[in-house]
């Protein structure tokens, strides 16, 4: 899986060089465009604060009280039986419901187990590799007033489960446990 490693190391530098040169060739005022676009990043980071505070505090109460450990004792044998790490099962469930909530959970897992641990890498991959099905369905169908969603919810949730399983396999494959 050396190619996945190479991709991780080279993709960002390659994109930087490519975008900067392409912008220059197309006579874009690169620096000004960069500054203008960058301002949006500040807004996004600040608008994330209430979401993260809300979710992290709730997760922290659940964890510090010992309730999470108690829940893990129930989930673990089931997750073990199908070969999935129990620690990320709550994240997988939350990922389908809310992106920012899942981001809080991912942060908690990275903080607890370390970013370079198996759980940390797996949580990172799960967080990055799927969109929030419920959010997408609510926003897109809601915006145009479609009430009968047909198979959309089923397809979305099945795709999320698939994405979770694929994430476990690929992280095991590339990094090992």
């Amino acid at each position: 899986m050396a190619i996945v490693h190479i991709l991780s190391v080279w993709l960002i530098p390659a994109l930087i060089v490519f975008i900067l040169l392409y912008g220059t060739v197309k006579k874009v005022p690169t620096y000004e465009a960069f500054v203008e676009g960058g301002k949006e990043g500040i807004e996004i980071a600040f608008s994330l604060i209430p979401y993260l505070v809300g979710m992290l505090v709730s997760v922290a109460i659940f964890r510090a009280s010992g309730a999470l450990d108690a829940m893990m004792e129930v989930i673990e044998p089931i997750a073990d039986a199908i070969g999935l790490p129990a620690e990320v099962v709550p994240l997988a469930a939350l990922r389908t419901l809310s992106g920012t909530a899942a981001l809080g959970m991912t942060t908690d897992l990275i903080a607890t187990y370390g970013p370079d641990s198996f759980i940390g890498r797996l949580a990172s991959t799960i967080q990055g590799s799927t969109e929030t099905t419920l959010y997408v369905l609510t926003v897109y169908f809601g915006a145009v007033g479609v009430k009968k969603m047909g198979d959309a919810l089923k397809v979305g949730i099945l795709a999320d489960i698939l994405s979770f399983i694929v994430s476990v396999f690929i992280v095991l494959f590339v990094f090992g446990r």
Partner: protein
Amino acid sequence: MVNVIWVMMAVIGIVFAAANGTMDEVNKAVFESAKEAVTISIGMISILVFWLGLMAIAERAGLLDRAARLFMPLVRRLFPEIPPGHPALGYIVSNMVANMFGLGNAATPMGIKAMEQLKKLNGGRDEASRSMVTFLAINTSSITLIPATVISIRMTYGSAAPGEIIGTTIVASTISTIGAVLIDRYYYWKRTRKGRKR
């Protein structure tokens, strides 16, 4: 749904703490985690500013449009019901490309425009058309190139290689998107088969 989970975690946690005598830990956790959440959000500014700044250059240079043109043939095959040249196709492609580059804010309005067009194609009915289900299947499992927020969190917690999950994320999201399309096709096949029996 999120509301319920959010409330439940806090309430169950506090009731559990009352029963198990861990209320001191809970008190500490409330203040520490709130502080941590703010630290993380502030920490994200660095990567988000850089990445969105770079993407602004890409957009003004017409790179996103070019990428959209590149994906057009693929999108036409994914949505056989949309007539060629219909504006819905353009919106769908722009939405996919924006998602790919982690521009969620740009992706959502494009996606909503695409849905409006798809509804028109469906005669303005309030039920999901085949194309809508396909569009949302692709959207919920969208292919990610650079998971910028995740990288910034990994940086905050002192990862030795914050970007090392880019490769696994691309592979996982690509496979799950292909899977989503196949699942969508399977359900479409099931629907049409049922229709014929009647």
